[in-house]
């Protein structure tokens, strides 16, 4: 399974993402934001956490217009898999690959803590390794994780089972406690919590391991 991890100025979870993907067996290449092409034969692209371009203008806005973003969009449009975590989720929302937007936390504070989540659907390569309704803990670390979308979009997400993760104890004011959403074809996942920071006993928990194993396993045999 071949994966790429995009790297922007200000990304700071790119290496964690590479470690998590490699531990699950993926062949991972970092790709700089000024490149306009992704490596050939790629199965999935990860957009990592961090503070791309200093969060200037809006979180993820400038990264979403960088040269590599065109290749990311083309990859997603031909059915490629994409995982966006934290700032990566913000980038995917800004590109329009996922609906809605992430605004300032309702409590205005940067929130950094282990966060309990419920796995809302197992119908995706990302979540197939969990049980429906399973509670997991991933770390969160964000200032702008408050998910907003119009009523029609929220209804569609719920109706199509595209809410992948929900917060147990909403930390940021997100609509319907939404922590992560899937695209219509279920191949693009964006979430604010960090599964790549929960893949080693030294992290304090390994609840994220199942996500990477499931993802790499599914694409390995595809």
């Amino acid at each position, binding site marked *: 399974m071949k994966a790429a991890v995009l790297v922007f100025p200000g990304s700071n979870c790119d290496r964690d993402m590479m470690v998590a993907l490699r531990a699950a067996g993926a062949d991972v290449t970092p790709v700089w934001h000024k490149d306009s092409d992704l490596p050939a034969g790629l199965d999935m692209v990860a957009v990592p956490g961090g503070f791309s371009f200093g969060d200037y*203008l*809006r979180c993820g*806005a*400038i990264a979403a*217009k960088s040269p590599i973003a065109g290749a990311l969009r083309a990859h997603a449009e031909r059915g490629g898999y994409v995982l966006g975590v934290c700032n990566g989720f913000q980038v995917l*929302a*800004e590109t329009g690959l996922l*609906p*809605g*937007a992430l*605004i*300032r*936390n*309702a*409590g*205005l504070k940067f929130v950094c803590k282990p966060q309990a989540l419920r796995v809302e659907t197992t119908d995706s390569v990302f979540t197939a390794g969990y049980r429906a309704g399973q509670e997991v803990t991933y770390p969160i670390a964000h200032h702008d994780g*408050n998910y*907003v*979308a119009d009523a029609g979009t929220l209804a569609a997400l719920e109706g199509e089972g595209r809410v992948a993760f929900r917060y147990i104890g909403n930390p940021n*004011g997100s609509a319907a406690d939404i922590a992560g959403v899937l695209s219509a074809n279920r191949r693009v996942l964006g979430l604010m919590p960090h599964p790549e920071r929960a893949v080693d006993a030294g992290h304090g928990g390994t609840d994220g391991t199942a996500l990477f194993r499931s993802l790499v396993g599914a694409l390995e045999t595809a």
Partner: protein
Amino acid sequence: MKATVTVMLKQGVLDPQGEAVRHALGALGFDGVEGVRQGKVIELDLAEGTTEETVRAMCDKLLANTVIESYRIEMGA
């Protein structure tokens, strides 16, 4: 020539920063502040002859996220 773009969260999108400012004004004793919305102002220095249509394209492509924000353009001299 200059253009000024004002970007605001759309009505109906909760503005946590505006709410915090409203609370702070109340705490300072300013009664009757019923709502505060906080946005941003972007000043553009443009080549002569740049059209409002071009500035609108800048807003739609980058300066505003029209999922959550609205914008207003003022073309100046």
